[in-house]
């Protein structure tokens, strides 16, 4: 991507990142192979922005988030944070990095130790990183409770005594305790009631503005991502297949997979209906990918070229808008049809 020279260096630069899991194909044959959960992913995140990462269940979003936050080792590739490599670092540097990159997990009832109070949960990162005195930590934790919209009096309660939304607020407060720069939000609202989702999203947007945070926002909900993200990356079977600014992506998706995903979204003007494109065909076995394009089995625009190697490369459609498809030139976003109702 060509960037103007005066643009600030991205906070996070990920290039050709891979994460494979070893899998036994079958107990009988004993054959083992790789499951390419993340398979050559490249993207940047600029300080202050929200990059939305969308894709179906199992496409590798969480794995990507975990590798970037150094919770899982990378198989191959490069991750730079503030311009510095974070894969090959010693323990001390890793501990410091942990303060800069924090995560919020999907299910707050699973990510909060059920036997710790809200206070101890939020204080734990400070204790681990040996930040402050007992008294200063106490003040910080109580402030954080208020920051995320919880009352100070809740500090001594256990997770099961909170509602789902309140629990996620504790998860967010904990992630903020170390004053991180980048938050990996792994489906932070997916486990919550729809009525609570908006509250948590508003909280996250508000925090981003006030605390200068950068978000990698993982979700399978395209309308949530449309609401929060500055840029959108679409993931399919371990790869990013399209990456674009929010407006460009939602107005003019390029990859057949993106087009299909978006066709399920209601348009703001209810008199206009999109042609719904159903994704048919089977997902390939992630441990045994076909030759050619990974999307061929479900693609409406598949050609012979897609069925033979090599895989399509990323192509630039317009500045900052890239997609991975052989047939971009022949594909148009579904024609919006005026309904005569």
């Amino acid at each position, binding site marked *: 991507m060509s960037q103007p020279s005066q643009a600030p260096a991205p906070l996070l630069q990920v290039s050709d990142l891979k994460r494979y899991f070893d899998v036994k194909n079958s107990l009988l044959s004993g054959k083992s192979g790789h499951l390419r959960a993340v398979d050559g992913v490249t993207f940047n995140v600029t300080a202050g922005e929200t990059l939305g990462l969308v894709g179906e269940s199992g496409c590798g979003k969480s794995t990507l988030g975990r590798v970037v936050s150094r919770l899982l080792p990378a198989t191959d590739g490069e991750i730079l944070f503030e311009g510095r490599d974070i894969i090959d670092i010693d323990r001390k540097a890793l501990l410091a990095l942990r303060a800069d990159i924090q995560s919020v997990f999907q299910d707050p009832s699973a990510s909060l130790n059920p036997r710790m109070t809200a206070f101890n949960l939020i204080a734990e990162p400070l204790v681990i*990183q040996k930040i402050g005195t007992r008294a200063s930590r106490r003040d910080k934790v109580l402030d954080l409770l208020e920051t995320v919209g919880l009352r100070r009096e809740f500090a001594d309660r256990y997770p099961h005594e909170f509602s789902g939304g309140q629990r996620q607020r504790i998860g967010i407060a904990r992630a903020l305790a170390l004053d991180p720069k980048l938050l990996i939000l792994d489906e932070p609202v997916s486990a919550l009631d729809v009525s609570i989702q908006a509250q948590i999203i508003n909280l996250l947007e508000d925090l981003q503005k006030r605390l200068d945070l950068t978000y990698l926002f993982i979700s399978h909900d395209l309308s949530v991502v449309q609401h929060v993200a500055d840029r959108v990356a679409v993931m399919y079977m371990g790869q990013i297949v399209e990456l674009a600014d929010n407006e460009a992506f939602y107005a003019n998706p390029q990859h057949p997979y993106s087009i299909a995903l978006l066709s399920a979204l209601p348009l703001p003007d209810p008199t206009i209906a999109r042609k719904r494109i159903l994704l048919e065909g089977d997902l390939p076995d992630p441990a045994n990918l076909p030759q050619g394009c990974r999307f061929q089995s479900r693609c409406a625009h598949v050609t012979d070229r897609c069925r033979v190697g090599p895989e399509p490369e990323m192509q630039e459609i317009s500045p900052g808008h890239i997609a991975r498809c052989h047939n971009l030139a022949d594909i148009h976003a579904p024609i919006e049809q005026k309904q005569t109702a």
Partner: protein
Amino acid sequence: MTTVSSLDSGAVAPVSARESLFARLKKNRLSLFGGVLVLLAVFMAISAPFLPLQDPDAVDASSRLAPIGAPGHLLGTDELGRDILSRMFWGGRITLLVSIAATLIAMIAGTFLGLVSGYFLGWTDTVISRGIDVLMAFPYFLLALTVIAILGPGLLNGMLAIALVNVPFFARIIRGSTLSLREADYVLAAKGMGAGHSRILFRHILLNSLPTLVVATTINLGFMITAAAALSFLGLGVQPPTSDWGTMLASGRQYLSSAPHTSYLPGLAIFLTVLGFNLLGDGLRDALDPRMRD
């Protein structure tokens, strides 16, 4: 920092998920009965020095094998004329002390091994698990006897022997719970804050294994009482003049026909205490950790 306007309402999730342990135990009458038996045994062990009991070792040749209800001896006397009531209290104290100490030793060693092998996996797990398998390959009692043959008989050695035999029980249970808890999201979250292994092991995994551990310990105490009594019965545990329920049972055995109470009473005490721990353990398991049901 300022407060976000949208304060969540103070409403709180129902606490029913955490109905008090006692409330749940109370529903299970059998385990309540077990709890009463255990309390009774513990009371005997603790209160022995404070009650106006006769000297348990005072020999009285003039009233040997006195029956239950004999004047001055509520539960009669044994073959040396010692007061059985007093000896039941003092002997229970030894039996319980040895069993509890042995259980604690086995619990600490087994928990540590289980945590380490279930968490680190790899060769650490291989070495520990194979060691545990070797311990388990010996017949339970033979292993205890082997240890005593090496160390010599006695209270302390007997205790160590039955502790060693019970290490695998704890190691296996805790390894299992560690294997599942190590994948928990809160462990991942702790890692993401920079937590070291010991913090993850003790603050997160062990803390969440506590219910399992409480249940396992209670059930194990039942085994231990049988094992301690059996060793003493064989003369390999407590050495005279000290005696526990096991030695009382052994010495009373010779007078089974003429003075059956001298062996029935300690035997009954052992039986009821073991029953108490097992019933209580079952109730705790159902209340705290239903997954442990085999």
